């Protein structure tokens, strides 16, 4: 191996690292401001002000919180399985970040334009449950373990209907590539023809990210804080960041699958001047707002109702819809032509 090839390899590696940073840093800032937005939005919905003291409109509040968390002591419970206890929050956080590798922000603006993008996303989001189970088990605490069990059962249940919803979209696209999925929505966003699936998917993402009204894993009224009761300081912060990064990721997935990704709502003059990434971020913000809105307005589900909704309503419904979509596409000869 010559020094020249080593140089070009180093340059390539550096370029990839730079691209990763260009996605990860704005994402982390987005996470920080999502926590602030959540408190402010819910504050206004409940006729309170929310945090508005640190900086103008409370804009420096996330940084104050981060500083506070970093300054706190990291506590390792005496009976905990130390290694697993430490790995769990890191795993949650890392999984929330690596999924962004395949999300297309604009035309060609994607870190890894792989053939099986949507499967990759589905795989990574199904791994999120490990961080939670590991945390619950390693804490060696009843509350944490109960929270982890609830969460694992819930996430596994809703993943099934999520998978079926994704199949619906794939039937209309004929590709697993995320860029192809967005391009297929140039005429009409999938949220319109597949509207019921859009709703099912959105509710499933709420359950998948353990958000209200499905936030039983951390139901503070019975489990203190669920799987992360025993965590403090930075390890807690990693869980927190991972959870919010996951929320943004799920919104991103909803936007790519149903709301036309980076495409403008209508392909007409003033709207198509706005660059794609801006549309993408605006759509993500819209979905995130609905996430917060749900939290402010809906009461928590009972656990048996949650399971009933997942297995007895969403699963059969999305399964029937897969058959119906395939049937309609076949009957009207609208099946996508796959370039082999």
């Amino acid at each position, binding site marked *: 191996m010559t020094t020249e090839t080593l140089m070009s390899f180093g340059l390539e590696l550096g370029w990839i690292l730079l691209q990763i940073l260009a996605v990860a840093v704005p994402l982390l800032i987005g996470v920080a401001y999502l926590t602030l937005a959540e408190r402010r939005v819910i504050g206004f919905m409940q006729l309170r002000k929310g945090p508005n003291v640190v900086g103008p409109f409370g804009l420096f509040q996330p940084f104050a919180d981060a500083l506070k968390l970093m300054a706190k002591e990291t506590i390792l419970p005496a009976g905990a*399985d130390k290694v697993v206890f430490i790995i769990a929050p890191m795993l949650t956080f890392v999984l929330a970040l690596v999924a962004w590798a395949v999300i297309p922000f604009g035309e060609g603006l994607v870190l890894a334009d792989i053939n099986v993008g949507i499967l990759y996303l589905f795989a990574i989001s199904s791994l999120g449950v490990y961080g939670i189970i590991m945390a619950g088990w390693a804490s060696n605490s009843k509350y944490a373990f109960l929270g982890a069990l609830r969460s694992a059962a819930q996430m596994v249940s809703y993943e099934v209907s999520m998978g079926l919803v994704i199949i619906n979209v794939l039937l209309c696209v004929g590709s697993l590539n995320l860029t192809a999925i967005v391009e297929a929505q140039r005429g009409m966003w999938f949220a319109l023809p597949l509207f019921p699936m859009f709703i099912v998917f959105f509710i499933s993402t709420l359950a998948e990210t353990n958000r209200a009204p499905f936030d039983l894993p951390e139901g503070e009224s019975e489990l203190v804080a669920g799987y992360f009761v025993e965590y403090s300081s930075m390890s807690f912060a990693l869980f927190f960041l991972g959870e919010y990064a996951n929320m943004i990721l799920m919104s991103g997935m909803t936007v790519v699958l149903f709301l036309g990704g980076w495409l403008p709502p209508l392909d007409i003059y003033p709207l198509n001047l706005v660059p794609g990434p801006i549309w993408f971020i605006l759509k993500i913000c819209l979905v995130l707002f609905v996430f917060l809105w749900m939290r402010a307005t809906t009461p928590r589900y009972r656990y048996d109702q949650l399971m009933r909704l997942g297995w007895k309503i969403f699963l059969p419904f999305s399964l029937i819809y897969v058959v119906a979509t395939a049937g309609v596409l076949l009957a009207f000869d609208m099946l996508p032509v796959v370039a082999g």
Partner: protein
Amino acid sequence: MVQSLFFYIFATITCLAGLMVVTARNPVHSVLFLILAFFNAAGLFILLGAEFLAMLLVVVYVGAVAVLFLFVVMMLDINYSELREGFQKYMPLGLGVAALLLAEILLTLFSQAELRSTTTATSDTHNTLELGRVLYTDYIYLFQLAGLILLVAMIGAITLTLRKRPGVRRQVITTQNNRTREESVAVVQVKSGEGVGGNG
């Protein structure tokens, strides 16, 4: 060069993780190492250019099967010393299975030339597409049969665990939804110091 580097990384971690699965003291750690091994096997699939199989391995084995595995192992009350005692007893059986698998691998290695000719025939199309084509046309009956076997297994598991206990009061969702405001809420004007009266 980078490819072979990654191959050695994935292969080494897979083997080490596999070794740790059988030697780890704590069964939960064993399952976690098993998951690590799955992951690296998925990495090897990607190096082979079989990205669809790699993702499926992660979704099915890591995302679903191993979660249930972990679930069960965590809930078991395991006595570690008792677990050690069984080691001697099951040793011959384990060695037998290992020898069988080794023989299979060696057989595959030596007949590699014949195998390769059939597996690389589909290199110019996406392997997702090709897999779908093969599964749903050539092997459609076998594929459906596999599905039916899984269905039977699922029904079997449900019938084994389902039990009807008497005296359990379950909520009927339709009755709940059909309740009206009039029959469930009463607005009563209460004079101060007198209470509602009656049993209420």
